[in-house]
């Protein structure tokens, strides 16, 4: 064989890759040899190769090729992931360019578009892996939404449901207003943000016995879970009614529309005078009770905490404990709904700016300070997530986590480098239930069926 004076990789690479494929060297079938198996971390079906994939797949190929040369029956299974959020977002964006809104389409029509997109762009990444020399058993290529894999997913869902590990419930979830879906805790990235801390004046309401006047058709207070709308109230916010104001510090003044209480620490000497009182939520003019709970940090702000059960996980827990009403003030896209009064339809961040001015103008803003806090962002769309109450499906993790934690800690499964064992243990020991439902169409549809019984005529 005559050798060229210079090595020209491109020719050589194509020639040998083709040869390896023709000879079936990458293909594996069970036999009497010791197996060596790697499953590829499935890249997004419509993605393209990036440097992370290059590193990852180079290492896998080295391990597989070495195992093969050591006489093992090496099998590297390739495949792709349907990547529900990422793919759906790409198709929604593409349709938007064509002037089509997702909401204008039926589920079936939309899915047709996604499948078309998937077939057009799908598998490019696997072709790129061939250029790298990846010795995958291409005859075994899988896709997370192919028939067998879909069937497996549905089977597992049903099995876990029947075992009582999957349940449905209203929970505070991480809402992505851009993708309009709930996310799991792991899909939220917390970042330090330079924000503001707003000190809002909640005027103390007159004693409950004092008639507030106003509309006669207002329902009694009790029926509204402890608050009363103050239409036409004679209380002047500026003068603070009978007992002045309590000042509440918050980073999110746009959520006051959902406030249903103010909470103080019963041991807080500076707020003893507020015990048993009611206050008026600024702008909203809703009367809400002052509740007492040791959860409140004496050192934070003024020691008075606004309680917004629909939009903060801790407030939600307070709400559950004290039976507070939950008022969701946002639409799915992060704009305010009808609870937002004159701000309805405006985006949450726009409202934050506007309400700062309006509170200043109304004399209800004590002060504004620069403030650094952690805000959760969507891993996929990079917008701040909104804690939101929503009906979702969950998987109970604690029973599943136990053997999985042990296996890593006792090195049945070895981590390289071993430092990741700590990270793993910390998460596994504090594991929360997994929110497995997504408000998306691209993916495995949840195999749950709501039984709808025809109403009797009398019930109509």
């Amino acid at each position: 064989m005559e050798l060229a004076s210079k090595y020209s990789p491109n020719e050589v690479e194509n020639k040998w890759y083709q040869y390896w494929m023709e000879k079936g060297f990458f293909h594996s079938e069970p036999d009497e040899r010791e197996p060596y198996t790697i499953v590829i971390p499935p890249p997004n079906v419509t993605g393209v190769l990036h440097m992370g994939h290059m590193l990852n797949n180079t290492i896998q190929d080295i391990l597989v090729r070495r195992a093969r040369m050591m006489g093992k029956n090496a099998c590297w299974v390739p495949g792709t992931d349907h990547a529900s959020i990422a793919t759906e977002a790409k198709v929604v964006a593409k349709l938007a360019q064509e002037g089509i809104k997702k909401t204008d389409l039926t589920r079936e029509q939309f899915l047709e578009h996604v499948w078309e997109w998937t077939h057009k762009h799908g598998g490019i990444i696997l072709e790129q892996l061939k250029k790298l020399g990846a010795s995958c058993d291409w005859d075994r290529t899988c896709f997370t939404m192919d028939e067998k894999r879909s069937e497996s997913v549905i089977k597992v869902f049903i099995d876990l449901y029947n075992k009582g590990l999957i349940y449905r419930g209203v929970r505070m979830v991480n809402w992505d207003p851009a993708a309009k879906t709930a996310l799991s805790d792991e899909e939220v990235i917390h970042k330090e943000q330079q924000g503001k801390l707003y000190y809002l004046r909640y005027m103390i309401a007159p004693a409950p016995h004092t008639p507030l006047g106003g509309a006669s058709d207002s329902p009694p207070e009790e029926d509204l879970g402890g608050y009363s709308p103050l239409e036409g109230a004679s209380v002047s916010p500026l003068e603070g009614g009978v007992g002045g104001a309590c000042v509440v510090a918050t980073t999110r003044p746009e959520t006051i529309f959902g406030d249903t209480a103010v909470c103080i620490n019963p041991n807080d000497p500076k707020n003893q005078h507020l015990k048993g009182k009611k206050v008026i939520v600024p702008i909203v003019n809703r009367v809400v009770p002052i509740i007492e709970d040791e959860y409140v940090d004496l050192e934070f702000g003024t020691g008075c905490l606004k309680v917004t059960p629909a939009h903060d996980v801790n407030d939600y827990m307070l709400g559950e404990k004290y039976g507070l009403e939950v008022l969701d003030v946002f639409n799915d896209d992060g704009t305010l709904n009808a609870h937002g009064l004159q701000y309805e339809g405006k985006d949450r961040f726009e409202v934050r700016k506007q309400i700062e001015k309006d509170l200043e103008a109304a004399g209800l803003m004590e002060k504004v300070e620069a403030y650094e806090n952690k805000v959760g962002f969507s891993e996929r769309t990079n917008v701040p997530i909104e804690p939101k109450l929503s009906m979702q499906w969950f998987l109970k993790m604690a029973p599943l986590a136990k053997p999985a934690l042990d296996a890593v800690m006792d090195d049945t499964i070895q981590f390289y480098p071993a430092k990741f064992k700590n990270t793993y243990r910390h998460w596994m020991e504090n594991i929360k239930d997994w929110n497995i439902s997504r408000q998306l169409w691209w993916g495995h549809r949840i195999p749950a069926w709501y039984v709808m019984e025809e109403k009797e005529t009398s019930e109509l």
Partner: protein
Amino acid sequence: MANEYKNIGVVVAEDEAKARELALQKFPHLKDKNFTLRQDEDTLDTWFSSWLWPISVFDGINEPHNKEIEYYYPTNDLVTAPEIIFFWVARMIMSGYEYRQKPCFKNVYFTGIVRDKLGRKMSKSLGNSPDPIELITKYGADGVRMGMLLSSPAGNDLPFDESLCEQGRNFCNKIWNAFRLVKGWELPPQPPSGGLRTPTPLRGAEGASKIAVEWFENKLAQSIESINDQFDKYRISEALMEVYKLFWDEFSSWYLEMVKPAYQQPIDRTTYEATLGFFDALLRLLHPFMPFITEELWHALAERKDGDSIMISPTPPSPPSGGESVAILRGASDSPPEGGLGGAFKEIISNIRAIRLQKNIPFKESLELQVLGEYDTTYNPVIIKMANLSAITKVSEKTSDAVSFLVKTTEFAIPLGNTLNVEEELEHLQKELTHHQGFLQSVLAKLGNEAFVAKAPAQVLDLERKKQADAESKIKSIEEAMAAYRCKK
């Protein structure tokens, strides 16, 4: 008027027919009623399918006892990024125990994050990621593969720079050229037989070559042991570095030089065979890292049949531990048994080369090496060949005009007496001095140019200042050398 329906509960089933059956079981009163089923609108989290991946790719959920899942599961290694340890790795482990009561893999290798020169994660939005396919076109797949691994120990970030791929490509060229060198040597008439070569005991090889073959055989065995050990610890970058150095330094820079036949002379057949055997072993060690060039050269190394491939040929075996041959080889290694100096031959040769360079003594002029103290003569033929010595002599006192150096605790000396023509030497040094002075002037002129200094980036300025310092120290040492010669005169 359309009928109205109320939701009375939920059933979970793979299709509507099954759901209907379940609904009737759960709510017997529905037998005599109208009811419909409305499927949940939501889909499942993407990770709810990939958490089953190691099982589902072998269809082990649907057919838990099929031949494939029984054979391939648990899988061996998972290679993934630490960012998805919870999304994916942890959940796979959970589903593995839930559905197979076994771990889904034995080892998890966490790769680092590929970052740019500024330490930022490479991403599409930042536009700081090169297109891998373009890199492959430019540097070859083997070059890029090597570039990815050159600085990527498990779990540590990989600061990526295209120059790493260039280094990979250079390595390919190095292998290519080494191969062409060997194949270009003049051969005894009968062609070497094909197939696997294991170096056989030498008969025809003489002197330096015989020792060289033994030495490299041992070197190779040590490296294989070390590579196996690195692989066992998933230190893949380190394994690559080991092969890289073995090929580049030990094999190319040392071994091939030791056995290289004299100009227009044929190489003896035994050494040639052994060299091809080494090449074969090196290619097989390199194959997992650089699959393409190794396949190409492996086919060029010997006649191959259709269907032969390096990728299905066995990896070079580790030497049997504690065996007699290894023990013998160990004696001739770089880390010799106590007291011996055999492995120090590289250091001796390097020192002699340095003296030649420093004293401007051409290679063709042979030198004498004097040894003072304990010395193992095993490597004499190699040293004589590679340093072009007339003799290696044990002396109790070195010649007065000799230049000496120490290797471990033994002193070596090269007498310079006859080899130096003082006049010539001075003339040569004068030329060199003039050259460096001129160079220094040009650098100083640049640094004296205010406009240049104001505009040039800091790195460029640093470089110029370094050039200045280097030139100044060169000039100083030349002047010293010249002064020494003048004294002799």
